[in-house]
């Protein structure tokens, strides 16, 4: 323990400045109200204040900042998507991630690792080839690699995966990265706060006031706020907010679970994904293996975790890495994934004027945090969907024009 830390511990008052202000009562009116102080909501607030000069903003959070999926994901950042809309969007996000440490003045532990999506059969390899070609066409560094190259990069992996799922190739994506997710929420919160944005924690939205198809205000557990502009960035709680707005959507909610091992010496540099074995895994800076799998198989709106999840995922991990048999699992948890039929988000304008949606983030939202903030802020400031989110608009289902991104999902959900 450092002397400085000891001094802070013994001090009767907190000698360090707070990361951001704890604003008092809600005001009667804000220019923009953002529901949800996760990465997306805070990044939207920050971009509105910084780029568009809109600073009379309240961000409302029913728990504490980053308590939802921002703090529950497995922190993987990549842009090796399948559709041109997706690749452009996530590639812009990767570019923003790279400058984010400096921009927010916080160490996000952004770490470029390389990302292997393993193929165990011809069908997966075909999708990998498809993704690689779309990526290359749009200037994104992805290529298909064979078993020899994979074995060289990952000598500790059983290339036959227990004998029942031999690896026949992989999609390799060099820019694949991980970052410290809590710091993302804290960094955006501080940056937004310094520009005058108010972040109200423990403030739950209880209703939306809509008159003549226009948003007029937000009811909360701490009183009513009048506003002409509301952004909903609440991931798994989106259907509840939409219900308050009298809207239905294609979004359906399933829990997504994850777990971490005890810390190990560094042995796994790249991020490994196997769609067939339903595994994605990376090793954090402090040595824990962060592991995730597919969605829970039924709709559920509670972040409970299950023994079956740990048993199944551990079994698949051992297919790939048998030497981990003695390693212990430290923690497990779950988040509520707001899934869409085409595995692309739903962003921007809605049928209610002044009510904007940043939703449908399912299992792929963390990596989009910076670009979601940029594009949602641009959309709110201009009243028109930002060009980068044109493929993710609310009405695409009515037009039967889906943005089919399922082939780029980490695992077969």
């Amino acid at each position, binding site marked *: 323990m450092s002397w400085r830390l000891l001094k802070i511990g013994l001090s009767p008052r907190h000698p360090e400045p707070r990361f951001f202000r704890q604003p008092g009562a809600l005001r009667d009116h804000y220019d923009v109200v953002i529901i949800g102080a996760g990465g997306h909501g805070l990044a939207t607030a920050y971009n509105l204040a910084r780029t568009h000069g809109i600073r009379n903003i309240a961000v409302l959070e029913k728990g504490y900042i980053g308590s939802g999926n921002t703090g529950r994901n497995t922190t993987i950042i990549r842009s090796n998507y399948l559709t041109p809309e997706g690749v452009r969007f996530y590639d812009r996000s990767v570019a923003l991630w790279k400058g984010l440490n400096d921009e927010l003045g916080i160490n996000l532990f952004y770490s470029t690792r390389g990302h292997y999506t393993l193929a165990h059969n011809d069908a997966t390899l075909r999708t990998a080839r498809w993704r690689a070609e779309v990526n290359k066409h749009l200037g994104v560094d992805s290529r298909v690699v064979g078993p020899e190259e994979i074995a060289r990069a990952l000598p500790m992996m059983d290339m036959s995966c227990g004998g029942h799922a031999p690896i026949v190739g992989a999609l390799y994506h060099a820019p694949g990265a991980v970052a410290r997710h809590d710091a993302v929420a804290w960094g955006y919160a501080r940056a937004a706060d310094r520009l005058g944005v108010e972040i109200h924690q423990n403030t739950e939205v209880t209703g939306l006031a809509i008159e003549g198809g226009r948003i007029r205000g937000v009811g909360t557990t701490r009183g009513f706020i009048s506003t002409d502009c509301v952004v909903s960035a609440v991931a798994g709680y989106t259907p509840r907010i939409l219900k308050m707005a009298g809207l239905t*959507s294609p979004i359906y909610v399933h829990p997504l679970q994850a777990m971490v091992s005890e810390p190990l010496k560094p042995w796994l540099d790249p991020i490994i994904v196997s769609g067939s074995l339903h595994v994605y895994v990376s090793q954090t800076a402090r040595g824990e293996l962060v592991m995730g799998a597919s969605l829970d198989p*039924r709709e559920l709106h*509670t972040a409970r975790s299950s023994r079956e999840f740990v048993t199944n995922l551990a079994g698949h991990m051992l297919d790939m890495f048998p030497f981990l048999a003695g390693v212990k699992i430290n923690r497990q948890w779950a988040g509520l994934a707001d899934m869409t039929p085409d595995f692309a988000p739903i962003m921007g304008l809605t049928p209610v004027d002044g009510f904007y949606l940043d939703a449908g983030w399912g299992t792929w939202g963390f990596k989009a945090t910076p670009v979601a903030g940029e594009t949602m802020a641009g959309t709110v400031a201009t009243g028109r969907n930002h060009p980068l989110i044109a493929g993710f608009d609310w009405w695409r289902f009515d037009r039967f024009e889906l943005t089919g991104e399922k082939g780029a999902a980490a695992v077969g959900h």
Partner: protein
Amino acid sequence: MKMIPCPLNGLRPAEEFAYGGEVRAMPDPASVDDARWAQYVFHRSGAPGVKREWWCHVPSGYWFVLDRDTTTDVVLGSWPAQDAPERAQ
């Protein structure tokens, strides 16, 4: 272990079952307009609540309906599809 009541096989482990989604009435494909068809194909009652759902007991290949609270995961009853009682929508 999560157990699910099957009208045919009794109480069985959840892992033996496949979830088939909410029971929904299909509009007549021959006469429905595009907007209502899109609503039926894509939209869901996404908010939590008590929902009537299709479930299949996979080992016996048996489909049935089940009422479940999607906030708590508590099963309120299960029936052969033709015997399910009416419920307020």
